[in-house]
């Protein structure tokens, strides 16, 4: 594998850190300039990340080592296919979110907007750091930056509910982090290294029992961020955050970072061979399947739209983990690809929920009757994304469902095929009524007179994300080669290249 030394990953990281500082010092007085920084940073970051794609598609790895932290472990960034995949997704959706959040934050007259945008930029910094980290330790540093910088965003509204939501968030995530420290410590004392390696580096170290325990602590630790049941409770509670936060952080950056870390552990720390040798893949798959089905059913019971979306997120995150834990080529490809697919679709859903809230202050599913008539673009995008999540072609969700189904057949585990299909049915069951009621029911009580969309700042990102989820469904390799990169990840970790 060819290694290129370049400062590009560092630049991509620095952009958001610098932006965070500029936002802080610009402050509330010049808010247009402040939002300008956010947007510019998002743009620059995206281009830096995208510029690394050709090299990585060629099978090269971009590396950038800074200082040594302790023997065998440096502060190191290493852009491989998997990291680049996540980074591209996060930076791409940051652009959309930065436009959207300007509309949202001003539309809701929110307080402390400087803090909001500062923490947002910092969170993106964390997410990208996680994506580019070349070893577990670097990953953990940014993992914690992400955790802490998201806390003020969750508690942003400063109401009692928001504060307790923030506390719950911290309690869950810091407890998870503590388990990660323990797992990292054990890994380091077993192997003397923490560098990621396609196919894992733990093979041949430690007894089977210890490795099984280690895997459990890793999955429990990172699983809290990935909202794997029963560690999911913080996510629905964190929905008190402003919608852009729920959208980007709780559909893309934070929870996806959790999933990303779990996948890193599965594919790059333990490796598929070791996991199937220890029969751990199948156990995790069963564990994830329970989350998939249970969260789908729980989503049915939610009346708060954002909470319903949160449970749908939990459902989809578990699908990703399920894919990776099946350890067959298509399943891994599908799981990795679903990180992006779900990101595009779920962000559309959250954006739509936020637009509805800004315009009408409605948060409950049962109050949305007839809203499709006054906000057609928003609700049409919502419908597209919702159907996509259920796996209906030509949306991008179909691609992942199809690949994952293939993967479960490859792995010879027909049961999981039914889990996936069952989850698709559940998706229809909890999204279908929303679509139906919003378009085909007469509004009750307050009438929505005619067309009444949210501001263009919000509508454009919503429509753009919806269009992208269709485009990616038709051309999975459009623009940034998401599908190819996902395939590359599967290949490089299964050792077939």
């Amino acid at each position, binding site marked *: 594998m060819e290694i290129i030394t370049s400062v590009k990953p560092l630049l991509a990281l620095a952009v958001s850190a610098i932006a965070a500082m500029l936002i802080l010092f610009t402050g*509330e007085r010049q808010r247009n300039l402040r939002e300008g920084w956010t947007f510019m940073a998002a743009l620059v970051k995206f281009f830096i990340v995208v510029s690394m794609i050709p090299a990585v598609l060629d099978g090269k790895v971009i590396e950038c080592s800074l*200082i*040594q*932290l*302790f*023997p065998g472990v*440096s*502060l190191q960034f290493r852009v491989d296919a998997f990291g680049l995949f996540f980074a591209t997704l996060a930076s791409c959706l940051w652009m959309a979110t930065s436009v959207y959040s300007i509309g949202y934050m001003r539309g809701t*007259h*929110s*307080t*402390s907007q400087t*803090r909001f945008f500062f923490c947002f930029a910092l969170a993106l910094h964390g997410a990208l750091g996680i994506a580019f980290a070349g070893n577990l330790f670097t990953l*953990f*540093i940014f993992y*914690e*930056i992400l*955790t*802490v910088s998201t*806390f*003020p965003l969750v*508690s942003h509204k*400063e109401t009692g509910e928001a*504060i307790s939501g*923030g*506390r719950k968030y*911290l309690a869950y995530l*810091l*407890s998870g982090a*503590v*388990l990660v*420290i*323990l797992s990292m*410590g*054990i890994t*380091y*004392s077993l192997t003397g290294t923490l560098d990621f390696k396609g196919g894992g580096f733990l093979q041949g170290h430690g007894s089977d029992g210890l490795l099984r325990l280690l895997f459990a602590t890793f999955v429990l630790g990172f699983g809290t961020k990935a909202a794997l049941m029963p560690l999911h409770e913080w996510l629905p509670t964190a929905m008190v955050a402003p919608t852009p936060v729920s959208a980007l952080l709780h559909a893309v950056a934070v929870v996806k970072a959790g999933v990303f870390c779990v996948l890193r552990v599965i594919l790059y720390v333990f490796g598929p061979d070791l996991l199937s040798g220890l029969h751990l893949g199948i156990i995790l798959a069963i564990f994830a399947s329970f989350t998939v089905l249970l969260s789908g059913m729980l989503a049915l019971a939610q009346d708060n739209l954002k909470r319903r979306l949160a449970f749908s997120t939990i459902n989809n995150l578990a699908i990703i983990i399920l894919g990776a834990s099946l350890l067959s080529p298509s399943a891994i490809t599908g799981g990795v690809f679903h990180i992006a697919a779900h990101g595009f679709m779920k962000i559309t859903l959250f954006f739509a929920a936020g637009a509805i809230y800004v315009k009408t202050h409605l948060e409950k599913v049962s109050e949305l009757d007839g809203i499709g008539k006054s906000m057609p673009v928003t609700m049409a995008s919502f419908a597209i994304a919702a159907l996509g999540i259920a796996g209906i072609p030509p949306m991008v969700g179909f691609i992942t469902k199809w690949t994952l189904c293939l993967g479960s057949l490859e792995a010879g585990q027909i049961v999981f095929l039914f889990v996936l299909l069952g989850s698709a049915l559940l998706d229809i069951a909890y999204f279908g009524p929303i679509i139906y009621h919003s378009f085909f029911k007469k509004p009750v009580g307050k009438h929505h007179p005619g067309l009444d969309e949210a501001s263009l700042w919000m509508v454009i990102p919503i429509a753009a994300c919806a269009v992208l989820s269709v485009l990616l469904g038709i051309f999975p390799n459009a623009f940034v080669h998401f599908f190819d990169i996902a395939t590359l990840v599967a290949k490089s970790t299964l050792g077939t290249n």
Partner: protein
Amino acid sequence: MISSPFPVLIIVVPLISAFLIVIVGLIKKSLCYPLMILSLSVSVLSSLAILNDVLSQGTLHYRLGGWPPPWGIEYVIDHLNAFVALIVSAISLLIGISSKRMVERDFPGKSAYFYCLFVLQVTGLLGIVVTGDVFNLYVFLEIASIAGYALIAVGEDGAPFASFNYMIYGTIGACFYLLGVGYLYIVTGSLNMADLSRLLPGLQSSKVVLMAFAFFMVGIAVKMALFPLHVWLPDAYTYAPSPVSSLVAPLTTKVGAYVMIRILLTVFPPSFFIETIPAALLLRWLGGVAVLFGCILALAQTDFKRMLGYVLIAEIGYIALGIGFGNRNGLTGAILHILNDGLMMACLFLIAGAIAYKGGPRKVARFTGLHRKMPLTMAALVLSALSVVGIPPTCGFFSKWYLVLGGIDSRQWLFVAVLLISSLFNAILFFRVIEKAYFKPAIDEQEMNQKALHPAGEQRDILSNGVKIDEAPLTILVPILIMAAGVLSVGLLSGKIVSEIIQFAIPANF
């Protein structure tokens, strides 16, 4: 043996200037502060020079009066004490700079005496660190302690009693230490550490040596406030004047920890406390209990400074735990924690001082809206709080990481769990403070009225304009910010610090 003058300059300059300050104060009061800063700066520069020499040439020896050891007093500086001396002198300088306005306000007309005691305290601490003689160490210990009693006693209501309490404990501790020295002298006839370390291995079975060891441990445990001998600490540091608590709280306990490491590793052979007698086991348990005890009691405090006092007890527990693991990683963590904890505790105590200087609240519950009044101070508070919790990339995480590794290496799963759980306790403690300072907007009566007058939509303007930025003066603010920056940069540089300094501070066979 190359004899550079710095090992003695680091002591003599502050010692002499302590008395000069009083004399100068009689003539011109405004000169006292510059003189103090000057002498502390000389100490910092000397310790930098020492560290530089140690890094390039290895251990430095300085014979006082040219008398050869073991008869004369010898200052021996290796990687360990060069490192600790730099920490002590640098933090003292920063706290010294910050003391100006607080002293002017709290002790008008008596600033000369205050600075004299302050510099004497630093002299004592530095003396403990550089000396290579167990009796000389006792002398400096007493200089530091007596200056400390006096400094603490001039604090607010309750300070004289707290100081008296501290004095009784401290004196008992010092006596125990002295008894230890005496017992060792009986068997070996030597007071020089290097000499003792040559003589002691043959005498390990002697009951007298065992007694000496026990006396040492108890005496030092009192000085470093190791559970259960910590009782003097919370009161003393809560009631002490702000510049004093931010000087003695982080440093005295850390210097105590240094003495413990020195006695365990240099004077006695390392195998003595690990294998011959179960001292390491005892240290582990005491450290582990101290960590949990400190954290839990800190949770119960409403006063910010007192809460920091209990956090400090927990932090001392970490160091004891690290030593008690008795392996390389654990000890690296303990030594690194001397630096990290010194930095973050000094920063936190100074922040408490800055808040108090601006007439701010002592109670955490009344911190509301502080971030609008003192944004930079609160940013520093967040950074050092994250460090205490152990969130990377702040420095506190790295020492915790080594401690966890040490625990894993020695298969002490119980204590690994204690370390990890204590992070969570600390998180509750400090996020409670951060939450108060940042989230709930400051509501006083005036604002309530304004709110009633204005519709909800304009609330934002009131909040962002209602509270004026009112930071502490620059002499206090700048040291706080320097230390906060240190918390961050020491974390990232910890790899370098460990590989270039701490690695050599631990005996090679360890």
